[in-house]
């Protein structure tokens, strides 16, 4: 427990929070974000009540919720790379990294606190927006459980993209390179996976119709691609029939959210492990001299 505490409540994290939250800019950011979210809600309700005959129904309420959630996911996906891709390389460029690496801080604790401190602000934004959901509850159609699940998706997406950002920031010398790579990775996850999914599904289904004896193992590939897409996974949780047809064709009955959760946890762990291992040089010198002194 003490170790765990030392890992999370540590000087690097404190320093980052102190430096980041010292600026007034950040609070202005939260304020604007909430204002935009609120405006979207009000506009949506206004349009629904003024221009449709049935008024604001519980299905409208669900749609508003989905709109808000997707909007926030979009925000996360676009902001997280920018927040994390410079965490380590930025310190290297400022020439403060060397000194930090000669302190007693473990690589694990430096990497984890860098990740958390950089996404902390986004998390704060999401939490601050939770009361907005009360509008949605007011009209029904959305269960509190659904809100939490959605929040979970958003958090996991943020952590995964953030970990990728920290990893690229650790391996590349320049923040520029790391930022571009992280954004590229994000675009692949959000857009590339969908395109790749449809291409592979068409290929495989077309292939199945042409010949009979296809090996089952090749069928899982489109599924493995699709679970990498956070928007699809989140949308599928609102609408469980999504891609059902395709999956039936491929013979997969594993729900998308399971694959997504496992896949994203795996990516997060993998990225963080790489970052932790690559932060300091690997000391692999081999000497035959016995220890002295």
């Amino acid at each position, binding site marked *: 427990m003490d170790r765990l505490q030392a890992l999370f409540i540590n000087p690097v994290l404190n320093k980052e929070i102190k430096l980041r939250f010292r600026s007034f800019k950040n609070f202005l950011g939260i304020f604007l974000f909430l204002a935009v979210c609120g405006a979207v809600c009000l506009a949506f309700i206004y349009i629904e009540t003024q221009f449709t005959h049935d008024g604001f129904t519980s299905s409208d309420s669900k749609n508003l919720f989905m709109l808000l959630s997707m909007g926030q996911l979009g925000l996360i996906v676009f902001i997280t790379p920018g927040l994390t891709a410079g965490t380590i390389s930025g310190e290297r460029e*400022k020439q403060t990294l060397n000194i930090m690496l000669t302190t007693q801080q473990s690589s694990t604790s430096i990497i984890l606190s860098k990740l958390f401190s950089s996404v902390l602000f986004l998390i704060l934004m999401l939490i601050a927006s939770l009361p907005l959901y009360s509008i949605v509850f007011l009209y029904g159609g959305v269960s509190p459980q659904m809100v939490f699940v959605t929040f979970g998706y958003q958090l996991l997406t943020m952590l995964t993209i953030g970990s990728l950002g920290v990893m690229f920031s650790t391996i590349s010398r320049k923040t520029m390179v790391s930022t571009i790579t992280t954004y590229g990775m994000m675009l692949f996850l959000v857009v590339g996976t969908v395109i790749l999914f449809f291409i592979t599904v068409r290929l495989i289904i077309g292939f199945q119709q042409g010949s009979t004896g296809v090996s089952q193992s090749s069928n899982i590939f489109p599924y493995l691609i699709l679970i990498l897409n956070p928007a699809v996974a989140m949308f599928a949780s609102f609408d469980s029939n999504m891609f059902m047809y395709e999956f039936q064709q491929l013979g997969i009955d594993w729900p998308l959210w399971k694959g997504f959760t496992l896949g994203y946890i795996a990516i997060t762990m993998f990225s963080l492990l790489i970052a932790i291992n690559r932060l*300091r040089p690997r000391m692999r010198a081999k000497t035959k001299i016995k220890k002295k002194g």
Partner: protein
Amino acid sequence: MIEIINLTKRYGSFTALENLNLTIDKGTVFGFVGPNGAGKSTTFSILATLLAPTKGTAYVNGFDVTKNPKQVRKHIGYVPDFFGVYDQFKVHEYLDFYGASYSIPTSERKTIIPQLLELVNLTEKTDAYVDLLSRGMKQRLCLARALIHDPEVLILDEPASGLDPRARVEMRGILRELKNMDKTIIISSHILPELSEICDELGVIENGKLIANGNVNQIEHQLQAQKILMVTVKENIEQAIAFFEDDSNVLEIDQDQQNQQLLKLSYQGSDDQQVELLKKAIGVGIPILTLGQKQTNLEDIFMEITKGDE
């Protein structure tokens, strides 16, 4: 104490450091001198566990930098040649952050930080933002930072670069104080006289190889394989040249451009041999007008050994 064994660092096919062997005893101030690109910073980075050696290793207080870097970090304070500061920190917050990074309890930090600021003469800057400090002040702050966990070994990479003469003198004073605290200090510089004043021992490094080391006098001796004799003759300069050329201890004869009667002899014989040579010269009738030996100081030797043989 520091022990460097067969330390080698290669970048691809380029060898930045080759088979460096060195032992520095506890409480010694060791100066590392060498021209640009000699491998000083490379050595220091390896000692600071920031760079993995290609071959060989080093021990700091008995801990292997390649096998036990975490322990090594506990025992060293490192001031890099170039470093940045977190610009939104105030001086005391800056030190507090690094104190926390070494897990020093808050209450202890509260007492140590003012002491350190006192040591490096920055007490009146406690509440200033670090990026507003002058370069020399930043350098001193970085030194205070390196001392926060009371390490036994200090690794200072050109701590005096960019300092004005007055700040250099101050830096020297601080180092002397640290030496009195029985710290082992290794320090690098291009400027030899500056180091010879505060260092107990010196190491001269060039092209990744240690070419001399020992205390200041030993180095002078080690490097002074040859001396320069200045001989002016009244006339018959050709005869003089022919005569000196015959002596096997005279390595080179240089006739001065302006004063054609002045010869500079690179001489490697002992003092006794030198006496004999001069007796003989007068014996064969060379009209020696004046005779002198060029005074060489460490700087000249440094220039001599490190000149254009790259």
